[in-house]
């Protein structure tokens, strides 16, 4: 995240206020903790990918008179775009952590704390978004603003689908097939990166073809990434304690498609048992027994190869190799 943004008065104000949330159950606390402590998830992957693809595409070939400062093979505008992408991603991580006041129970703690947490979450998310918009305007490129604005719209719709599912009663899944799943995941997980990669190419005035290749890389790589993370609970070898997984993750959705909805619902009910508490271990076994897991792995690798195919259009370079390595990492299964 941009240093300038981090050092701003507003964010330090927020940080002070968020401290008041310590001891409450508001999700914002987890999000904030994740930024500070959890370096594994805080890789700022999106920004990194945007930078790498900018470098891989090289200087603009179309307009020789195109003058911008280029540092380490990356234009300053592209650098700014990478920052913007991270800002937007973070803003929505924060906005995801809002609770519905009407659904709170007494075990969630005092209402005042939750309201306060909501207030902080909305404000900080808005602050990050406003910063992103301002930086976007400074790029002085209307096509890029259009692309990124539409990406934000996509992201909102994607998160909306996420929300709808998680608020379902009895953890029942939606009756969606894998193609619908892919559309929704594209919106919530891929659109931002894909369009940012394309925008990075636009900033350097690369051809429409290169822009499309960058888009394809971004899209397929992030789809693979999502599939990879969905598969983690199912491919880890030793797990004495089973972690809960989403019933709308890829393996589950594919499993439902193979098995048929009724049989799947039956399996869920069996796993729920008497007390309506989900026995995830049992359900996991059921899914592993079917074709869901292998299907998901295949799908992940399929997207991976499409990402690599898009990369072929870029000239060989260290940056391109790094991008390929990322694909290998997200398609690797034990």
């Amino acid at each position, binding site marked *: 995240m941009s240093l300038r943004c981090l050092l701003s008065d*507003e964010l330090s*104000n927020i940080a002070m*206020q968020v401290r008041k949330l310590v001891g409450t159950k508001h999700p914002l606390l987890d999000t904030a903790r994740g930024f500070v402590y959890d370096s594994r998830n805080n890789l700022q992957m999106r920004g990194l990918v945007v930078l790498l693809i900018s470098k891989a595409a090289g200087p603009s070939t179309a307009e020789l008179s195109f003058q911008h400062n280029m540092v380490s093979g990356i234009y300053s505008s592209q650098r700014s775009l990478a920052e913007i992408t991270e800002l937007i991603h973070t803003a*929505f991580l924060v*906005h995801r952590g*809002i*609770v*519905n*006041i*009407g*659904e709170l129970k007494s075990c969630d703690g005092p209402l005042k704390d939750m*309201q306060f947490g*909501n*207030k902080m*979450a*909305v*404000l900080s*998310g*808005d*602050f990050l*978004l*406003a*910063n992103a*918009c*301002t930086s*976007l*305007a*400074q790029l*002085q*490129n*209307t*096509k890029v*603003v*259009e692309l990124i*604005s*539409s990406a*934000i*719209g996509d992201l*909102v*719709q994607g*998160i*909306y*689908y996420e*929300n709808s599912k998680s608020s379902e009663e009895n953890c029942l899944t939606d009756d969606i097939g894998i193609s619908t799943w892919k559309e929704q995941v594209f919106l919530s997980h891929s659109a931002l990166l894909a369009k940012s990669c394309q925008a990075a190419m636009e900033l350097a005035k690369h051809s429409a073809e290169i822009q499309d290749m960058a888009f394809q890389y971004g899209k397929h790589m992030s789809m693979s990434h999502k599939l990879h993370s969905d598969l983690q609970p199912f491919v880890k070898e030793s797990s004495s304690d089973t972690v809960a997984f989403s019933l709308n993750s890829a393996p589950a959705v594919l499993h439902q498609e193979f098995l048929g909805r009724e049989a799947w619902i039956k399996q869920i009910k069996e796993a729920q048992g008497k007390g309506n508490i989900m026995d995830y271990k049992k359900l996991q076994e059921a899914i592993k027994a079917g074709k869901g897991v292998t299907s998901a792995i295949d799908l992940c690798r399929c997207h991976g190869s499409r990402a690599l195919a898009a990369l072929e259009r870029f000239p060989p370079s260290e940056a391109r190799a790094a991008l390929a390595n990322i694909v290998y990492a997200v398609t690797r299964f034990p």
Partner: protein
Amino acid sequence: MAPFPLSRAQRPEGAAGGKAKQLPPARTSSRQPCERVAAAPGFRVRVAAVAEGGAGAARLGDTMALRWWWWRWCGAPSRRAPALGSLPRLRPPGPGCRSPPPPAPGAAVCHFTQRSSTFSFPKICNIFWRCSKTASDEKYQDPFQLGRKDLKNLYEDIKKELLVSTVELKEMCDYYFDGKGKAFRPMIVVLMARACNIHHNNSREVQASQRSVAIIAEMIHTASLVHDDVIDDANSRRGKMTVNQIWGERKAVLAGDFILSAASLALARIGNTTIISVLTQVIEDLVRGEFLQLGSKENENERFAHYLEKTFKKTASLIANSCKAVSILGCPDPKVHEIAYQYGKNVGIAFQLIDDVLDFTSCADHLGKPAAADLKLGLATGPVLFACRQFPEMNAMIMRRFSKPGDVERARKYVLQSDGVQQTTYLAQRYCHEATREISKLRPSPEREALIQLTEMVLMRDK
């Protein structure tokens, strides 16, 4: 606040003039001072204009001083017990006025029934004065009528921008674009666009890009409203439930984000990077304004500056920058851009000041949202800050943001006992005057007059 310096000619002298009797009958308690007012020489001319609806139109020059002086003597309830037993009978416009009566009298009458309406009587006279003036100079036009054609499909067009596949999300986004809002901001934008176009090359047409700016301004405004309602945990606005009340906070925040992204997309499609920069500034100011509201200042003087800065960022910046944007699109002269910006800024601040006043003087049903909301949120607005100078015991309450039980009620009483409301209104008038002064630098046109009229309407609104 020092009273406006009055010239010798305007100070009250001597006995009642005969013309005073033709004014709308005032409350008995305030008849005498007004008769004295009527005797002042400069004033008599204007009264005559009102009474006869004749062509003796007075110049705008001394409006401010007169108005200030008028309600200090006639309208301020702190100086005499308000006798609200009877409504004033509104005199219909004189023969000189060819146009239908302005909508404001109805509003003024309704306002008059509220507890501490301080400016109804002067306002009513003012309406007729303006009516007669414009009748003699230009054809009187209700600003909302002038802009109606351009804004006819405003809300439909906004809904078209909100292309979203999910039915519920679309429902949430469309919720406030039902045509029941005041459409105040788009109105100003469209009128300013025409005024600038006329100033530049006498063209009365509004360009497509200028109309887009009006749409974008309204969308940004609505997105910020949706988020503000979540932040303030509000449950009603514009006479109906808020988005967060119906669909929950999570979805409400998403809806606000979506409207913002759609506005940003429409902005990009105009294809002008300057305009993008100007309007993006608004988004940043809106957020910073919210943050300013979070913090508070210890020092009394700092508090007022802080309040004005917050008011600019939260309300005036949108209007100022949208006016500036349409002026850039309509006219290449930077002086015109500055005029548009200053007009928007001054009107915007006045608008918010009156809003803060209405929070104290109006009742919830009429406003469409709960009253005394600012106090309950811990916010010290204009009337409170002025009242604090008369009642220093309010300082402690302000510092703890009215959090102790009973604070809100006590603060409200103090404000209504003090001249906080009047002072704030006076300040709003000064801003309106400044706005009028700025816009008068443009070439004359019905739109320019309408914009001047709009500043009056800002002062006279009651919801």
